[in-house]
């Protein structure tokens, strides 16, 4: 968590994103602060993924600003990335590396060391016991997703941006992931999550925004 007394806050100010010819959303404004879980809903093509990629700083919005602690994330760049964890449609793991290697490399690139022992413990916790040192290309779809999700347990980022984290997960894993997200929020973090299926994301401080309602 960030040192100092200020609570983390992410502000979205009149954001507008265009894909090809389509304006996905227009003048979208909202704010999320520490201890809040934002649940984004919307039909396919309503711009959920685009919004999340913009929030992660991957996508340059047509206009509008996203501010982290009052400063535009475009200006902050690496400083913002330090506080961010983004999980997209792709798992972001290398098939030729083992789960442990994947987790440790991700940790080092994220700027903190993760020793071998902790990596093994986290992978066991997420239900990959016995698969830790297998190249991940040999794992099932659900297991690969778990490797990706293991980063949530290892990471110290404040802002979690998760795009469809529940896909390809079984019931037990869904339950585990929900617990992890709620724990993160309870600790004062921010979580922004999209789902298209009805996964109960209800808990304290949950807010839902539905995209694609008003016709832009």
């Amino acid at each position, binding site marked *: 968590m960030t040192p100092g007394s200020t609570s983390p806050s992410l502000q979205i100010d009149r954001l507008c994103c265009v894909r090809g010819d389509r304006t996905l959303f227009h003048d979208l404004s909202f704010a999320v602060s520490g201890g809040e879980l934002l649940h984004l809903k919307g039909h396919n093509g309503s711009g959920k993924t685009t919004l999340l990629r913009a929030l992660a700083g991957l996508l340059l919005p047509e206009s509008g600003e996203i501010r982290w602690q009052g400063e535009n994330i475009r200006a902050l760049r690496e400083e913002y*990335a330090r506080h961010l964890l983004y999980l997209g449609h792709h*798992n*972001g793991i290398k098939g*030729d590396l083992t789960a442990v290697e994947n987790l440790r490399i991700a940790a080092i690139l994220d700027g903190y060391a993760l020793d071998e022992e902790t990596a093994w413990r986290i992978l066991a916790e997420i239900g990959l016991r016995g698969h830790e040192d297998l190249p991940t290309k040999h794992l099932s779809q659900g297991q690969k997703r778990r490797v990706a999700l293991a980063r949530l347990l290892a990471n110290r980022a404040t802002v979690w941006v998760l795009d469809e984290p529940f896909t390809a997960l079984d019931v037990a894993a869904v339950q585990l992931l929900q617990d992890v997200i709620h724990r993160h929020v309870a600790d004062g973090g921010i979580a922004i999550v999209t789902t298209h299926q009805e996964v109960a994301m209800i808990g304290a401080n949950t807010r839902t925004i539905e995209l694609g309602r008003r016709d832009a």
Partner: protein
Amino acid sequence: MLEPLYWIIRRDLTIAMRRRADVFTTLIFFVIVVSLFPLGIGPEPETLRQIAPGIVWVGALLASMLALEQIFSADHRDGTLEQMLLTPQPVSVLVVGKILAHWLVSGVPLVIMAPVLGLQYNLSADVLLVLMASLLLGTPALSLIGAIGAALTLGLRSGGVLLALLVLPLYIPVLIFGAGAVEATASGLGGQAHLSMLAAILVASLVLAPLATAAALRVAED
């Protein structure tokens, strides 16, 4: 800054070692292309000796360009590239790491193989030495410049051909000084000046190319 650099190189080398077959494809391409020319031109030793620097250099240039097409595409497909853009590390440093690893795997074998191919063309020992030196300085520059093109064409339909169209004109100075060094040595003029120009190009591209590549990667992941 050096730690992520070390880890990204280590990561890419580990992956390359686990799929060793890919490493040899570039090398075999290089050998075949260079061996084709005598068949097209004729076995006259004097003619071959004269055109050898150009041929070996063009062969190395094409091989390195073909290998570059793959430098970011696997990471792009599995999503690790977008994760790299979201780390607190400067993207250009990670890019340098990736290019360096890529060069170690695909460029260094070319440098080592070149003298063997030079023997096919009757080059003398000192010329072979300069050939190696010029490739040692030139191929990393090719990788650095080519990476810009690879990032710009990432995920496009006509990626491979387009990459060639974008990158080959930019390769011209490296080719001129690289092949020039070998030729100057063969004709007794000495290749020192050429080699120092190559070194200058290498340094310049080491400073500038990763910035352009990082910017292009951000655009490609947009």
